[in-house]
């Protein structure tokens, strides 16, 4: 292609069908429908190439900073964690933000049993569906259908193992259909970073919780990010109270005059 033709087709006033920025000031003129969700859809949502990706903060300052602001609102993320390491607690802020869309949240526990009493205490109970599958192939199929349906804002899937190919497929679909897919797996069998927006590992080292970021879109991977990961409940208040008041003379039951 000659330089003159090249310069001609790059002219800002020449309409190019695949490029949104074809006006002189670089902004595409759009007439709003007057309905927020429709206008957003017509604008390409958060998934338009080149557009700034919407991110949902996790609520932990240093982790959000390492993740370039939080978890991308559309796409897949992987959490490598053992059962009971508090992965849902870590994600709570993200799930709450996604739940605000009023779309469905699909849980694919994959042979685990979600506690109804726990779920009933969450704000997104009414919009949650638990899909029980007998094998991981069905779970992946159900996840894909949920993404494609555009009825779901988030899919939380527990797996024993996830292949990079399957992860990539979910990542592409989730970005296309504006859905957040959370893949929770132990991570032993996935040595490399998965092709998803965020691939993080939750680790506990004697008294401190760390997050290893194997992959982050928009930032560099980081290791040993210390986070606060409090227990859902503890006896610390009682222990502290006993510790404080057991040494106080003022609270002694029997005083010797």
């Amino acid at each position, binding site marked *: 292609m000659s330089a003159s033709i090249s310069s001609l087709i790059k002219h800002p006033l020449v309409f190019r069908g695949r490029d949104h920025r074809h006006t002189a000031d670089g902004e595409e003129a759009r007439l709003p429908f007057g309905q927020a969700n429709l206008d957003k859809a017509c604008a390409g949502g958060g998934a338009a190439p080149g557009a700034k990706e919407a991110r949902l903060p996790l609520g932990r300052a240093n982790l959000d900073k390492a993740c370039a602001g939080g978890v991308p609102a559309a796409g897949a993320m992987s959490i490598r964690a053992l059962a009971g390491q508090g992965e*849902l607690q870590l994600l709570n802020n993200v799930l709450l933000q996604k739940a605000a869309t009023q779309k469905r949240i699909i849980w694919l526990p994959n042979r685990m049993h979600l506690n109804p009493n726990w779920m009933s205490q969450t704000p997104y109970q009414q919009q949650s569906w638990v899909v029980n599958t007998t094998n991981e192939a069905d779970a992946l199929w159900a996840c894909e259908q949920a993404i494609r349906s555009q009825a779901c804002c988030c899919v939380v899937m527990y797996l024993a193992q996830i292949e990079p190919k399957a992860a990539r497929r979910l990542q592409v679909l989730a970005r296309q259909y504006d859905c957040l897919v959370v893949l929770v797996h132990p991570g032993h069998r996935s040595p490399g970073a998965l092709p998803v927006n965020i691939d993080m590992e939750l680790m506990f080292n004697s008294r401190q919780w760390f997050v290893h970021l194997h992959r982050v879109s928009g930032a560099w991977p980081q290791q040993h990010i210390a986070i606060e990961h409090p*227990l859902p*409940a503890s006896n610390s208040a009682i222990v502290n109270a006993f510790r404080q008041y057991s040494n106080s003379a003022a609270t002694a039951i029997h005083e010797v005059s």
Partner: protein
Amino acid sequence: MHWLYLHFPRLQLDQFEQLHPEQTAPTVVIDGTDNTVCQLSAAAITVGIKPGMGLAEVTAMHAQTWIIEYSANSESSQLEQLATTLYAIASDIVCVASNGIAINLSPLVRYYQGLDNFMALCERTLTAQRVHFHFGSGTTIEIARVLARSRVNRVETEPELADYHLKNCSLQATELPAREMEQLNRIGIRKLGQLIALPLEEIGKRFSNRIITYLLAIKGVKQPPYSLFHPRKLFSQYLELPYAVESAPGLSRYIAVVLGNNCTYLQKRNLATDTLQFELQQREHDNLVFVVNAGTAHHHLSEWQMLVDLKLEQLTLDSPVTSLTLTCDQLVEFDPENLSLLQSTYSRHAENMLLGKLLARLGNDSVKTVQQINEHRQDYTLQQTSPLHNSPASSEANGQQPAWLMVQPQPLTEQTQILYGPERIHTGWWDENPVKRDYFLAVTGKGQRLWVYRDEQQHWYVHGYFG
């Protein structure tokens, strides 16, 4: 009265050709009672096969001929389907035998402002159904039937012309029994005109009253009583398969036909359904019944077809299927509110479609919403409800709850540190499952937060994980 008779000479073959449009080999339908050809395709005519030929003769003429066994049930079902379709354009319809439909034209002349208008609409409707048909008209159903079977294919409004056509018809086109027809042939009577010319008293001396009644109808003197057709209030269709199908996915193309009819039926009545019941007749086993549920009641063919295909993927047949029946009896009035394109709120349509897909592939109890129940024993809380049945949620907190539960508590085998507890649960003393446990939150060396309990025997168990 003026009747139109529609004669469908090859209903079963028409259906076969609809199901297998790719089939170009000669195809015949064999009547199992005498093993003779009763219906034959254009390709079969080309190779020289004729109606009435025996099975051996057919195979001798063309070894690669497709042979289908005649099924009266299949034709009756098709005829009912056609009558249901025609009911949209005509009111007084009579189903005659297994391959004829009579329509009373008298009220339609005024309604359609002329017979030609109605006939054009009728022919167009039947052509869309892809069936071969011939027609004739007369003052009684019997006259119209003879003319249709003689392939007159005209609607005569002038009595003289109709009479002329009738008299030229062969006795083969009548409903006279074969024995009586043979008797008449022997005395040289081969045309209907010759038979009509004979005095009824003379015929009465030699033939039964049944023949006299028939001749009175042919002469237009007296019409035998017929009951008018009324479409069923529920949809049900039987389909005989051209050959036994061994795998469930192979049934998809056949189910598509009845499914299409069902959706058309629903759309024309502004009805919808969320449940379809299929009954598969297996050759060597009992009938197999399965139900397909959709997330919401609707009447869209493509969506139902997708759900049925998903269900068929999961289905295992015990033996080849020879026929199937679709029944749709849970009908509701169609509510298009959810299908609005520009709804400001989130449309439930996509959600219902997803639910239908998940139920079809993973089973009817695979998708649940979670509801809290008033029970402190966690073994009883593994109860979830279907998303199709919403019930108000209880908001009462029930202590510190883990996200994940074990179906059966497992003995605690690893070293842990208790960081919270105890929470005592002492309940169920009034029934057969009393529980007295002290629950704790314990942490392992890897940071796993376990929900453990100690029972009365001081044994420790893991009951769940804090996610």
